[in-house]
């Protein structure tokens, strides 16, 4: 009997995919934590094939065939929003949000993001080294931005950041994640009820007025949408900013190239997105028999798209293991692909560009205050990155 490789596997270096993934390109059977065997899709073309076909490869999280990549995904079945739905149900919800996430709208937030970043760096400089850039910089930037966008009071950040971490961490148990989801839902339900009495000017207030009051959404549906936007709106970008700092510091010649030409910032951020693959993998299940790179996928089979290796596929990216700030390739799958591609991707780009660009301009002597090998890496199966980022300058 063949022993299947496990999915997910822990990274040895925070910005490289786990070593074990590369052995089974482009498609192979792997075993999940609960013993279930699913297809791991590690090739770029195959990843796109699956992600572009929501009819054959469903995102319906409630369905028992939808594979739980880690225990917390079992709890996530009780949270119903568009990330875990298929068209046409998915499309209706996503379209309610589109106007708030256009390139124009996110660009209009840039001056506010810049002011926020400047203020945090003022504090860091005033305090002096050593600074831990996770709580002092990488986390508050997207956390404050998503609060202001949604109309969630940032004064509650300690609560929702803690609960969000329990929701996105690979090692979170079933009980912990179920409790975190329950607490986040209760918090957001209370917030939305308060907003129904005293409307504010955030996206949640707009959705209450346009969708809940008209009967297009129930309050509990809005709670589940708000939960997704709040959690995904800060935890992933916070990880990307912190790991982006690490990745740039560990590639000094690339950092020097970026410093010598600030116009490279957008392509540098795009390359960081490709290279780091903060979201390690995403799940689907087959609704019908299908051929996938010569393998016979059966209806009901689970599928995991391994973003970290699809982004390192030499067929799609020449010299894929090289980090090159001028690569200029946007066809990575770090935001997914297909109908579920990240709705907040342009906000994430803006936050990363402003945070990283300003940080390295303001603190030219920035360096790690601890060896890379000693930085605590986030657990397999969750949002990837580092838990702490002590730096000096």
């Amino acid at each position, binding site marked *: 009997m063949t022993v299947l490789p496990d999915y997910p596997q822990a990274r040895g270096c925070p910005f490289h995919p786990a070593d074990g993934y590369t052995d089974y390109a482009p498609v192979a059977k792997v075993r999940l934590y609960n013993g279930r065997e699913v297809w791991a899709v590690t090739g770029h073309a195959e990843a796109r094939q699956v992600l*572009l076909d929501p009819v054959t490869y469903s995102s319906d999280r409630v369905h028992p065939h939808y594979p739980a990549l880690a225990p917390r995904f079992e709890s996530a079945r009780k949270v119903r929003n568009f990330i875990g739905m298929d068209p046409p149900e998915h499309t209706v919800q996503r379209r309610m949000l589109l106007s708030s*996430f256009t390139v*124009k709208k996110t660009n209009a937030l840039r001056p506010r993001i810049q002011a926020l970043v400047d203020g945090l760096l003022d504090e860091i400089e005033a305090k002096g080294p050593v600074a831990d850039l996770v709580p002092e910089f990488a986390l508050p930037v997207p956390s404050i931005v998503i609060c202001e966008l949604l109309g969630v009071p940032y004064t509650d950040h300690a609560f929702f950041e803690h609960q969000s971490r329990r929701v996105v961490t690979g090692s979170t148990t079933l009980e912990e994640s179920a409790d975190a989801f329950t607490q986040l839902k209760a918090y957001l339900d209370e917030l939305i009820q308060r907003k129904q009495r005293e409307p504010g000017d955030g996206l949640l207030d707009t959705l209450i007025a346009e969708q809940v009051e008209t009967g297009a959404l129930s309050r509990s549906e809005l709670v589940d949408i708000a939960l997704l936007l709040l959690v995904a709106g800060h935890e992933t970008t916070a990880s990307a900013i912190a790991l982006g700092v690490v990745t740039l510091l560990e590639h000094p010649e690339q950092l020097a190239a970026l410093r010598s030409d600030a116009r490279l910032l957008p392509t540098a951020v795009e390359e960081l997105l490709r290279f780091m693959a903060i979201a390690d993998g995403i799940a689907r299940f087959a609704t019908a028999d299908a051929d996938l790179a010569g393998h016979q996928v059966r209806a009901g089979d689970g599928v995991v798209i391994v973003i970290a290796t699809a982004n390192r596929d030499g067929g799609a990216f020449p010299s894929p293991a090289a980090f090159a700030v001028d690569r200029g390739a946007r*066809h990575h799958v770090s935001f997914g692909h*297909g*109908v579920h*591609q990240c709705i907040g991707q342009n906000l994430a780009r803006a936050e990363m560009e402003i945070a990283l660009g300003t940080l390295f301009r303001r603190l030219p002597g920035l360096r790690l205050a601890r060896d890379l090998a000693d930085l605590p890496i986030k657990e397999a199966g969750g949002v990837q990155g580092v838990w702490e980022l002590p730096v000096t300058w």
Partner: protein
Amino acid sequence: MRITADQERCLGAGQCVLSAPDRFDQSDLGLVEVLDPEVPEGDEQRFRDILDLCPSQALSLEA
């Protein structure tokens, strides 16, 4: 060649606007709008690559 956009398929990722802001915009609803559909001769491959980035396959090139 001309670019055609299918607003029914569009899901507002904004990839087209990022690639060619002189050619694409997003409506108040967040859906794609083609500002200038004409693709100059010799530029077809560049636009095929841009269209290929669209996650909802809402854009196509027509003769």
